[in-house]
Protein backbone atom coordinates (compact mmCIF):
# COMPACT_ATOMS: atom_id res chain seq x y z
CA UNK A 1 0.00 0.00 0.00
CA UNK A 2 1.26 3.47 -0.91
CA UNK A 3 -0.11 6.49 0.87
CA UNK A 4 -0.15 10.00 -0.58
CA UNK A 5 -2.06 13.15 0.18
CA UNK A 6 -4.26 15.13 -2.12
CA UNK A 7 -6.00 18.45 -1.65
CA UNK A 8 -9.48 18.69 -3.17
CA UNK A 9 -11.92 21.54 -2.46
CA UNK A 10 -9.94 22.89 0.48
CA UNK A 11 -10.01 19.43 2.01
CA UNK A 12 -6.95 17.36 2.79
CA UNK A 13 -7.49 13.82 1.58
CA UNK A 14 -5.31 10.87 2.38
CA UNK A 15 -5.11 8.50 -0.58
CA UNK A 16 -4.14 4.89 0.03
CA UNK A 17 -3.29 2.96 -3.14
CA UNK A 18 -3.55 -0.83 -2.86
CA UNK A 19 -1.41 -2.09 -5.78
CA UNK A 20 -3.48 -0.10 -8.29
CA UNK A 21 -6.38 -2.47 -7.49
CA UNK A 22 -8.32 0.05 -5.42
CA UNK A 23 -7.92 3.38 -3.63
CA UNK A 24 -9.21 4.35 -0.22
CA UNK A 25 -9.76 8.09 0.31
CA UNK A 26 -9.94 9.39 3.87
CA UNK A 27 -10.61 12.84 5.32
CA UNK A 28 -11.09 14.32 8.76
CA UNK A 29 -14.24 16.15 7.64
CA UNK A 30 -16.81 13.38 7.13
CA UNK A 31 -19.43 15.55 5.44
CA UNK A 32 -16.87 16.75 2.96
CA UNK A 33 -15.69 13.20 2.29
CA UNK A 34 -19.25 12.12 1.49
CA UNK A 35 -19.71 15.11 -0.86
CA UNK A 36 -16.46 14.30 -2.63
CA UNK A 37 -17.46 10.63 -2.92
CA UNK A 38 -20.83 11.54 -4.44
CA UNK A 39 -19.18 13.90 -6.90
CA UNK A 40 -16.59 11.30 -7.97
CA UNK A 41 -19.40 8.81 -8.61
CA UNK A 42 -21.30 11.33 -10.74
CA UNK A 43 -18.25 12.20 -12.81
CA UNK A 44 -17.98 8.62 -14.25
CA UNK A 45 -14.20 8.57 -14.55
CA UNK A 46 -13.02 5.93 -17.04
CA UNK A 47 -10.38 4.59 -14.65
CA UNK A 48 -12.90 3.80 -11.91
CA UNK A 49 -15.18 0.72 -12.01
CA UNK A 50 -16.93 1.14 -8.64
CA UNK A 51 -17.36 3.92 -6.07
CA UNK A 52 -18.37 3.03 -2.51
CA UNK A 53 -19.00 6.00 -0.22
CA UNK A 54 -18.95 5.55 3.54
CA UNK A 55 -18.52 8.02 6.36
CA UNK A 56 -14.88 7.20 6.95
CA UNK A 57 -13.64 6.01 3.57
CA UNK A 58 -14.43 6.34 -0.08
CA UNK A 59 -13.36 3.24 -2.02
CA UNK A 60 -12.56 3.53 -5.73
CA UNK A 61 -12.15 0.20 -7.55
CA UNK A 62 -9.65 0.84 -10.33
CA UNK A 63 -9.26 -0.70 -13.77
CA UNK A 64 -6.40 -0.88 -16.25
CA UNK A 65 -6.93 2.74 -17.30
CA UNK A 66 -5.67 3.96 -13.94
CA UNK A 67 -2.26 5.58 -13.71
CA UNK A 68 -0.70 7.79 -11.09
CA UNK A 69 -1.58 10.92 -13.05
CA UNK A 70 -5.28 9.91 -12.85
CA UNK A 71 -5.30 11.33 -9.33
CA UNK A 72 -4.99 14.82 -10.76
CA UNK A 73 -8.12 14.11 -12.84
CA UNK A 74 -10.02 13.91 -9.58
CA UNK A 75 -9.44 17.62 -9.23
CA UNK A 76 -11.91 18.21 -12.07
CA UNK A 77 -14.82 17.19 -9.89
CA UNK A 78 -17.49 19.74 -9.15
CA UNK A 79 -19.52 19.78 -6.00
CA UNK A 80 -22.98 21.25 -6.41
CA UNK A 81 -23.96 22.80 -3.13
CA UNK A 82 -27.69 23.14 -3.78
CA UNK A 83 -28.15 19.41 -4.22
CA UNK A 84 -26.96 18.88 -0.67
CA UNK A 85 -29.58 20.85 1.18
CA UNK A 86 -32.46 18.42 0.62
CA UNK A 87 -34.51 17.22 3.56
CA UNK A 88 -36.83 14.22 3.39
CA UNK A 89 -39.61 13.33 5.82
CA UNK A 90 -39.73 9.64 6.62
CA UNK A 91 -42.94 8.37 8.25
CA UNK A 92 -42.52 5.46 10.67
CA UNK A 93 -45.11 3.32 12.40
CA UNK A 94 -43.49 2.54 15.76
CA UNK A 95 -45.10 -0.84 16.35
CA UNK A 96 -44.72 -3.21 19.29
CA UNK A 97 -41.77 -5.20 18.05
CA UNK A 98 -40.17 -7.41 20.70
CA UNK A 99 -36.84 -5.58 20.24
CA UNK A 100 -38.29 -2.51 22.00
CA UNK A 101 -37.61 -4.17 25.33
CA UNK A 102 -33.85 -3.99 24.86
CA UNK A 103 -34.04 -0.39 23.59
CA UNK A 104 -36.06 0.77 26.60
CA UNK A 105 -33.77 -1.03 28.98
CA UNK A 106 -30.61 0.45 27.45
CA UNK A 107 -31.94 4.01 27.15
CA UNK A 108 -33.86 3.96 30.42
CA UNK A 109 -36.63 5.89 28.66
CA UNK A 110 -40.30 5.26 27.96
CA UNK A 111 -41.30 4.28 24.44
CA UNK A 112 -43.01 7.66 24.06
CA UNK A 113 -39.83 9.50 25.08
CA UNK A 114 -37.73 7.45 22.64
CA UNK A 115 -40.10 8.30 19.77
CA UNK A 116 -40.01 11.99 20.73
CA UNK A 117 -36.22 11.97 20.76
CA UNK A 118 -36.17 10.28 17.36
CA UNK A 119 -38.58 12.81 15.87
CA UNK A 120 -36.43 15.65 17.14
CA UNK A 121 -33.18 14.17 15.85
CA UNK A 122 -31.48 15.69 12.81
CA UNK A 123 -30.71 12.49 10.98
CA UNK A 124 -28.82 12.31 7.73
CA UNK A 125 -28.00 9.58 5.22
CA UNK A 126 -24.49 8.50 6.22
CA UNK A 127 -24.13 5.93 3.47
CA UNK A 128 -25.59 3.11 1.42
CA UNK A 129 -24.27 -0.39 1.96
CA UNK A 130 -24.99 -3.83 3.35
CA UNK A 131 -27.78 -4.60 0.87
CA UNK A 132 -29.46 -2.74 -1.99
CA UNK A 133 -31.58 0.08 -0.59
CA UNK A 134 -30.33 -0.22 2.97
CA UNK A 135 -29.93 3.24 4.53
CA UNK A 136 -27.46 4.06 7.28
CA UNK A 137 -28.78 7.19 9.05
CA UNK A 138 -26.61 9.00 11.52
CA UNK A 139 -27.41 11.62 14.12
CA UNK A 140 -28.91 9.22 16.65
CA UNK A 141 -28.90 10.57 20.25
CA UNK A 142 -26.23 8.84 22.30
CA UNK A 143 -28.82 7.53 24.74
CA UNK A 144 -30.39 5.51 21.91
CA UNK A 145 -27.15 4.04 20.54
CA UNK A 146 -27.89 0.47 21.60
CA UNK A 147 -24.95 -1.83 20.76
CA UNK A 148 -25.70 -4.44 18.08
CA UNK A 149 -27.11 -7.82 19.01
CA UNK A 150 -24.47 -10.43 19.80
CA UNK A 151 -26.35 -12.99 17.73
CA UNK A 152 -28.00 -11.46 14.66
CA UNK A 153 -31.68 -12.23 14.03
CA UNK A 154 -32.10 -14.60 11.11
CA UNK A 155 -34.99 -12.64 9.64
CA UNK A 156 -35.76 -8.95 9.61
CA UNK A 157 -38.81 -7.95 7.59
CA UNK A 158 -38.42 -5.57 4.65
CA UNK A 159 -39.10 -1.89 5.52
CA UNK A 160 -38.09 -2.37 9.14
CA UNK A 161 -36.54 0.57 11.00
CA UNK A 162 -33.85 -0.50 13.45
CA UNK A 163 -31.20 0.85 15.79
CA UNK A 164 -27.63 -0.50 15.77
CA UNK A 165 -24.79 1.32 17.49
CA UNK A 166 -24.53 4.86 16.18
CA UNK A 167 -26.88 4.23 13.24
CA UNK A 168 -30.57 4.06 12.57
CA UNK A 169 -31.06 1.63 9.69
CA UNK A 170 -33.80 1.15 7.11
CA UNK A 171 -34.07 -2.40 5.80
CA UNK A 172 -35.45 -2.19 2.30
CA UNK A 173 -35.28 -5.95 1.72
CA UNK A 174 -35.93 -9.00 3.91
CA UNK A 175 -32.59 -9.97 5.41
CA UNK A 176 -30.82 -11.20 8.49
CA UNK A 177 -29.95 -8.35 10.85
CA UNK A 178 -28.11 -7.56 14.05
CA UNK A 179 -29.96 -4.34 14.91
CA UNK A 180 -32.98 -3.67 17.16
CA UNK A 181 -36.20 -3.26 15.20
CA UNK A 182 -38.46 -0.46 16.49
CA UNK A 183 -40.87 0.17 13.63
CA UNK A 184 -41.91 -0.12 10.02
CA UNK A 185 -41.81 2.47 7.25
CA UNK A 186 -44.46 2.38 4.54
CA UNK A 187 -42.57 4.19 1.75
CA UNK A 188 -40.85 2.77 -1.32
CA UNK A 189 -37.15 3.65 -1.27
CA UNK A 190 -35.63 1.24 -3.75
CA UNK A 191 -36.68 0.99 -7.38
CA UNK A 192 -34.48 -1.52 -9.17
CA UNK A 193 -36.00 -0.69 -12.54
CA UNK A 194 -34.48 2.78 -12.54
CA UNK A 195 -31.01 4.26 -12.43
CA UNK A 196 -30.26 5.59 -9.90
CA UNK A 197 -32.26 2.94 -8.03
CA UNK A 198 -32.43 5.24 -4.98
CA UNK A 199 -33.28 8.92 -5.23
CA UNK A 200 -31.56 9.82 -1.95
CA UNK A 201 -27.91 10.81 -1.76
CA UNK A 202 -25.47 10.42 1.09
CA UNK A 203 -25.60 13.67 3.03
CA UNK A 204 -29.37 14.14 2.62
CA UNK A 205 -31.22 15.12 5.82
CA UNK A 206 -33.97 12.88 7.17
CA UNK A 207 -36.73 13.77 9.65
CA UNK A 208 -38.69 10.90 11.18
CA UNK A 209 -42.45 11.28 11.62
CA UNK A 210 -44.43 9.00 13.89
CA UNK A 211 -47.59 7.71 12.17
CA UNK A 212 -50.38 5.44 13.32
CA UNK A 213 -51.23 2.03 11.92
CA UNK A 214 -54.05 3.37 9.77
CA UNK A 215 -51.82 5.90 7.98
CA UNK A 216 -49.13 3.26 7.65
CA UNK A 217 -51.51 0.78 6.00
CA UNK A 218 -52.82 3.41 3.62
CA UNK A 219 -49.37 4.61 2.47
CA UNK A 220 -48.20 1.03 2.10
CA UNK A 221 -51.23 0.07 0.05
CA UNK A 222 -50.70 3.00 -2.33
CA UNK A 223 -46.98 2.17 -2.76
CA UNK A 224 -46.03 5.79 -2.15
CA UNK A 225 -42.38 6.59 -2.91
CA UNK A 226 -40.26 8.74 -0.63
CA UNK A 227 -40.05 11.32 -3.42
CA UNK A 228 -43.86 11.53 -3.88
CA UNK A 229 -44.36 11.72 -0.15
CA UNK A 230 -42.06 14.72 0.06
CA UNK A 231 -43.27 16.42 -3.13
Amino acid at each position, binding site marked *: *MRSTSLRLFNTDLQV*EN*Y*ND*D*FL*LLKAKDRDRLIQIGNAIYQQEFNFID*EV*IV*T*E*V*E*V*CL*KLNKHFEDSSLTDLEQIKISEEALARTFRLPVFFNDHEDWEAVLEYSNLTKRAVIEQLEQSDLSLA*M*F*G*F*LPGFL*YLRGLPEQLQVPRKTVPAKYVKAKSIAIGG*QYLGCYTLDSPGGWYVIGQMPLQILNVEELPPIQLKPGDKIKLESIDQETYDELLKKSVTIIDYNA
Partner: protein
Amino acid sequence: MPSLEILKPGLLTSIQDIGRQGLSFFAIPRAGVLDQNAAQIALLLLNLPMDHPLIECTSIAPHIQFNDAARIAISGADFNWKLNDAAVHPNQVLHVNEGDILRGQFAKQGLRGYIAIDGALRINKMYNSFATYLPAKMGGYQGRTLQKGDILEWEEQPAPQDGIVSISVLPGPEFNWLSNAAKDELREVVYVVSADSNRMGLRLKGTTLTASSYQLQNSAPVLPGFIQLPPSGQPIIVLQSGQTTGGYPRILYLRPNDLPMLNQIPLGGKLRLNLM
Protein backbone atom coordinates in the same frame (compact mmCIF):
# COMPACT_ATOMS: atom_id res chain seq x y z
CA MET B 1 12.27 -28.33 -17.93
CA PRO B 2 9.38 -29.74 -19.98
CA SER B 3 9.55 -29.09 -23.72
CA LEU B 4 8.17 -29.87 -27.14
CA GLU B 5 9.87 -30.23 -30.50
CA ILE B 6 8.56 -29.12 -33.86
CA LEU B 7 8.76 -32.10 -36.25
CA LYS B 8 7.09 -30.32 -39.17
CA PRO B 9 6.47 -26.59 -39.00
CA GLY B 10 3.25 -26.28 -41.01
CA LEU B 11 2.67 -23.25 -43.23
CA LEU B 12 2.92 -20.28 -40.88
CA THR B 13 3.22 -21.30 -37.25
CA SER B 14 4.23 -18.66 -34.73
CA ILE B 15 3.99 -17.67 -31.08
CA GLN B 16 1.40 -14.97 -30.48
CA ASP B 17 -0.45 -13.36 -27.62
CA ILE B 18 -3.00 -10.56 -27.28
CA GLY B 19 -0.50 -8.21 -28.97
CA ARG B 20 1.42 -5.09 -28.01
CA GLN B 21 -0.67 -2.04 -27.48
CA GLY B 22 0.00 1.66 -27.75
CA LEU B 23 3.05 1.62 -30.04
CA SER B 24 1.34 2.55 -33.31
CA PHE B 25 2.77 6.00 -32.64
CA PHE B 26 6.19 4.52 -33.47
CA ALA B 27 4.79 2.53 -36.40
CA ILE B 28 5.05 -0.67 -34.39
CA PRO B 29 1.89 -2.68 -35.09
CA ARG B 30 -0.03 -4.52 -32.46
CA ALA B 31 0.59 -7.99 -34.01
CA GLY B 32 -0.79 -10.81 -31.85
CA VAL B 33 -3.43 -13.45 -32.51
CA LEU B 34 -5.54 -12.98 -35.62
CA ASP B 35 -8.60 -14.64 -34.12
CA GLN B 36 -8.86 -13.39 -30.55
CA ASN B 37 -12.07 -15.29 -29.89
CA ALA B 38 -10.56 -18.68 -30.78
CA ALA B 39 -7.36 -17.89 -28.89
CA GLN B 40 -9.32 -16.92 -25.79
CA ILE B 41 -11.24 -20.19 -25.89
CA ALA B 42 -7.97 -22.13 -25.66
CA LEU B 43 -6.75 -19.91 -22.81
CA LEU B 44 -10.03 -20.12 -20.93
CA LEU B 45 -10.03 -23.91 -21.22
CA LEU B 46 -6.76 -23.94 -19.29
CA ASN B 47 -7.72 -21.10 -16.92
CA LEU B 48 -4.86 -19.02 -18.28
CA PRO B 49 -4.75 -15.21 -18.31
CA MET B 50 -5.76 -13.48 -21.54
CA ASP B 51 -2.22 -12.17 -22.14
CA HIS B 52 -0.68 -15.66 -22.06
CA PRO B 53 1.23 -16.68 -25.23
CA LEU B 54 0.12 -19.57 -27.47
CA ILE B 55 0.95 -21.17 -30.80
CA GLU B 56 -0.96 -19.90 -33.83
CA CYS B 57 -1.30 -22.29 -36.79
CA THR B 58 -2.30 -21.21 -40.29
CA SER B 59 -3.78 -23.30 -43.10
CA ILE B 60 -1.41 -26.27 -42.65
CA ALA B 61 -0.87 -27.45 -39.09
CA PRO B 62 2.47 -28.40 -37.57
CA HIS B 63 3.50 -31.81 -36.23
CA ILE B 64 4.62 -31.49 -32.64
CA GLN B 65 6.29 -34.01 -30.40
CA PHE B 66 5.90 -33.53 -26.66
CA ASN B 67 9.06 -34.49 -24.81
CA ASP B 68 7.16 -34.29 -21.53
CA ALA B 69 3.62 -34.66 -20.26
CA ALA B 70 1.50 -31.51 -20.52
CA ARG B 71 -2.00 -30.11 -20.37
CA ILE B 72 -2.80 -28.36 -23.61
CA ALA B 73 -5.88 -26.93 -25.29
CA ILE B 74 -6.61 -26.62 -29.01
CA SER B 75 -9.10 -24.20 -30.58
CA GLY B 76 -10.02 -22.40 -33.78
CA ALA B 77 -10.08 -24.02 -37.23
CA ASP B 78 -10.30 -27.82 -37.38
CA PHE B 79 -7.06 -29.21 -38.74
CA ASN B 80 -8.19 -32.86 -38.47
CA TRP B 81 -5.96 -33.05 -35.41
CA LYS B 82 -4.63 -36.40 -34.29
CA LEU B 83 -2.94 -37.17 -31.01
CA ASN B 84 -0.76 -40.11 -31.95
CA ASP B 85 -3.32 -42.07 -33.96
CA ALA B 86 -6.52 -40.90 -32.28
CA ALA B 87 -8.60 -38.12 -33.81
CA VAL B 88 -9.13 -35.14 -31.48
CA HIS B 89 -11.56 -32.27 -31.91
CA PRO B 90 -10.77 -28.61 -31.24
CA ASN B 91 -12.06 -26.72 -28.19
CA GLN B 92 -10.99 -29.19 -25.58
CA VAL B 93 -8.27 -29.83 -23.06
CA LEU B 94 -5.86 -32.64 -23.92
CA HIS B 95 -3.60 -34.43 -21.48
CA VAL B 96 -0.57 -35.37 -23.51
CA ASN B 97 2.06 -37.83 -22.31
CA GLU B 98 5.78 -37.91 -22.80
CA GLY B 99 6.53 -38.81 -26.42
CA ASP B 100 3.03 -38.09 -27.74
CA ILE B 101 2.80 -36.53 -31.18
CA LEU B 102 0.11 -34.00 -32.09
CA ARG B 103 -0.33 -33.59 -35.82
CA GLY B 104 -2.77 -31.72 -37.99
CA GLN B 105 -3.42 -31.41 -41.72
CA PHE B 106 -5.12 -28.77 -43.85
CA ALA B 107 -7.49 -26.45 -42.07
CA LYS B 108 -11.15 -27.12 -42.75
CA GLN B 109 -13.85 -24.72 -41.59
CA GLY B 110 -11.58 -21.78 -40.95
CA LEU B 111 -7.96 -20.93 -41.47
CA ARG B 112 -6.32 -20.36 -38.09
CA GLY B 113 -6.05 -22.48 -35.00
CA TYR B 114 -4.41 -22.24 -31.58
CA ILE B 115 -2.50 -24.54 -29.26
CA ALA B 116 -2.17 -23.31 -25.68
CA ILE B 117 0.13 -24.97 -23.13
CA ASP B 118 -0.51 -24.87 -19.39
CA GLY B 119 2.84 -23.41 -18.36
CA ALA B 120 4.97 -20.31 -18.67
CA LEU B 121 6.74 -20.51 -22.06
CA ARG B 122 10.47 -19.82 -21.91
CA ILE B 123 10.50 -17.00 -24.42
CA ASN B 124 11.16 -13.32 -23.91
CA LYS B 125 8.71 -10.48 -24.01
CA MET B 126 9.37 -7.54 -26.28
CA TYR B 127 7.60 -4.32 -25.45
CA ASN B 128 5.59 -6.20 -22.88
CA SER B 129 4.27 -8.79 -25.36
CA PHE B 130 5.16 -12.25 -26.66
CA ALA B 131 3.61 -11.61 -30.08
CA THR B 132 5.79 -12.43 -33.10
CA TYR B 133 6.09 -9.58 -35.59
CA LEU B 134 7.94 -11.08 -38.54
CA PRO B 135 9.09 -7.99 -40.55
CA ALA B 136 11.07 -6.66 -37.58
CA LYS B 137 12.02 -10.15 -36.28
CA MET B 138 10.46 -9.11 -33.02
CA GLY B 139 9.01 -11.17 -30.20
CA GLY B 140 7.91 -14.78 -29.99
CA TYR B 141 10.46 -17.49 -30.82
CA GLN B 142 13.54 -15.59 -32.00
CA GLY B 143 11.30 -13.22 -33.91
CA ARG B 144 10.44 -15.85 -36.53
CA THR B 145 8.02 -18.64 -37.39
CA LEU B 146 8.58 -22.01 -35.75
CA GLN B 147 10.83 -24.33 -37.80
CA LYS B 148 11.65 -28.04 -37.83
CA GLY B 149 13.81 -28.92 -34.87
CA ASP B 150 12.82 -25.91 -32.73
CA ILE B 151 12.48 -26.77 -29.06
CA LEU B 152 10.00 -24.83 -27.00
CA GLU B 153 10.37 -25.05 -23.24
CA TRP B 154 8.01 -24.06 -20.47
CA GLU B 155 7.92 -23.92 -16.72
CA GLU B 156 5.33 -26.22 -15.27
CA GLN B 157 2.62 -24.67 -13.14
CA PRO B 158 3.05 -26.04 -9.62
CA ALA B 159 0.45 -28.75 -9.20
CA PRO B 160 -1.76 -28.39 -6.12
CA GLN B 161 -0.24 -30.42 -3.29
CA ASP B 162 -2.59 -33.05 -1.91
CA GLY B 163 -5.49 -31.23 -3.53
CA ILE B 164 -4.72 -27.98 -1.66
CA VAL B 165 -5.37 -24.98 -3.89
CA SER B 166 -3.03 -22.04 -3.39
CA ILE B 167 -4.80 -18.65 -3.54
CA SER B 168 -2.70 -15.49 -3.87
CA VAL B 169 -3.66 -12.76 -1.43
CA LEU B 170 -2.43 -9.23 -0.69
CA PRO B 171 -2.47 -7.21 2.54
CA GLY B 172 -5.80 -5.45 3.03
CA PRO B 173 -6.58 -2.14 4.80
CA GLU B 174 -6.54 -3.70 8.31
CA PHE B 175 -3.70 -6.17 7.67
CA ASN B 176 -1.73 -4.69 10.56
CA TRP B 177 -4.51 -5.53 12.99
CA LEU B 178 -3.39 -9.16 12.69
CA SER B 179 -1.12 -10.35 15.48
CA ASN B 180 2.42 -11.25 14.49
CA ALA B 181 1.60 -14.86 15.24
CA ALA B 182 -1.38 -14.69 12.88
CA LYS B 183 0.75 -13.16 10.12
CA ASP B 184 3.16 -16.09 10.45
CA GLU B 185 0.42 -18.68 10.69
CA LEU B 186 -1.27 -17.39 7.54
CA ARG B 187 1.30 -19.04 5.30
CA GLU B 188 0.90 -22.39 6.98
CA VAL B 189 -2.81 -22.72 7.65
CA VAL B 190 -4.74 -25.11 5.45
CA TYR B 191 -8.31 -23.85 5.29
CA VAL B 192 -11.41 -25.86 4.54
CA VAL B 193 -14.32 -24.27 2.68
CA SER B 194 -17.22 -24.35 5.13
CA ALA B 195 -20.68 -25.61 4.21
CA ASP B 196 -22.07 -22.25 5.47
CA SER B 197 -20.65 -20.57 2.36
CA ASN B 198 -23.01 -18.98 -0.14
CA ARG B 199 -22.94 -16.51 -3.03
CA MET B 200 -22.31 -13.63 -0.62
CA GLY B 201 -19.36 -15.06 1.21
CA LEU B 202 -17.05 -18.02 1.36
CA ARG B 203 -16.44 -19.03 4.96
CA LEU B 204 -13.14 -20.65 5.82
CA LYS B 205 -12.50 -23.11 8.64
CA GLY B 206 -9.01 -23.48 10.02
CA THR B 207 -6.66 -22.23 12.70
CA THR B 208 -8.12 -19.20 14.47
CA LEU B 209 -6.34 -15.97 13.51
CA THR B 210 -5.92 -13.43 16.29
CA ALA B 211 -6.20 -9.68 15.76
CA SER B 212 -6.07 -6.55 17.92
CA SER B 213 -9.79 -5.95 17.23
CA TYR B 214 -12.57 -7.59 15.24
CA GLN B 215 -14.84 -4.58 14.83
CA LEU B 216 -14.35 -1.42 12.78
CA GLN B 217 -15.76 1.69 14.42
CA ASN B 218 -17.66 2.53 11.26
CA SER B 219 -18.79 0.29 8.44
CA ALA B 220 -16.30 0.60 5.61
CA PRO B 221 -16.24 -0.30 1.90
CA VAL B 222 -15.93 -3.94 0.85
CA LEU B 223 -15.28 -5.35 -2.64
CA PRO B 224 -15.56 -8.93 -3.94
CA GLY B 225 -12.34 -10.70 -2.95
CA PHE B 226 -11.91 -8.83 0.35
CA ILE B 227 -11.18 -11.13 3.27
CA GLN B 228 -12.85 -10.17 6.55
CA LEU B 229 -11.94 -11.40 10.01
CA PRO B 230 -14.97 -11.66 12.33
CA PRO B 231 -14.57 -12.27 16.09
CA SER B 232 -14.51 -16.05 15.50
CA GLY B 233 -11.05 -15.57 13.91
CA GLN B 234 -12.21 -17.62 10.90
CA PRO B 235 -11.87 -15.56 7.70
CA ILE B 236 -14.74 -14.84 5.32
CA ILE B 237 -14.02 -14.09 1.66
CA VAL B 238 -16.58 -11.67 0.20
CA LEU B 239 -17.85 -12.96 -3.16
CA GLN B 240 -19.61 -11.42 -6.14
CA SER B 241 -23.02 -11.16 -4.40
CA GLY B 242 -21.46 -9.82 -1.21
CA GLN B 243 -22.38 -6.71 0.73
CA THR B 244 -20.74 -3.42 -0.32
CA THR B 245 -19.89 -2.27 3.21
CA GLY B 246 -18.98 -4.15 6.35
CA GLY B 247 -17.81 -3.74 9.90
CA TYR B 248 -15.22 -6.51 10.19
CA PRO B 249 -11.53 -5.79 9.63
CA ARG B 250 -10.46 -6.33 6.02
CA ILE B 251 -7.23 -8.19 6.65
CA LEU B 252 -6.44 -9.39 3.13
CA TYR B 253 -7.80 -9.26 -0.38
CA LEU B 254 -7.51 -11.31 -3.51
CA ARG B 255 -7.67 -9.94 -7.03
CA PRO B 256 -10.81 -10.39 -9.14
CA ASN B 257 -8.85 -12.61 -11.58
CA ASP B 258 -8.35 -15.17 -8.83
CA LEU B 259 -12.02 -15.40 -7.88
CA PRO B 260 -12.98 -17.95 -10.59
CA MET B 261 -10.46 -20.49 -9.28
CA LEU B 262 -11.52 -19.83 -5.68
CA ASN B 263 -15.19 -20.19 -6.51
CA GLN B 264 -14.63 -23.62 -8.06
CA ILE B 265 -13.31 -25.10 -4.81
CA PRO B 266 -16.04 -27.45 -3.55
CA LEU B 267 -17.47 -27.28 -0.04
CA GLY B 268 -15.04 -29.15 2.17
CA GLY B 269 -12.22 -28.44 -0.31
CA LYS B 270 -8.85 -27.23 0.96
CA LEU B 271 -6.93 -24.08 0.22
CA ARG B 272 -3.94 -22.13 1.39
CA LEU B 273 -3.70 -18.33 1.43
CA ASN B 274 -0.44 -17.40 -0.24
CA LEU B 275 0.50 -13.89 0.91
CA MET B 276 2.27 -12.03 -1.91
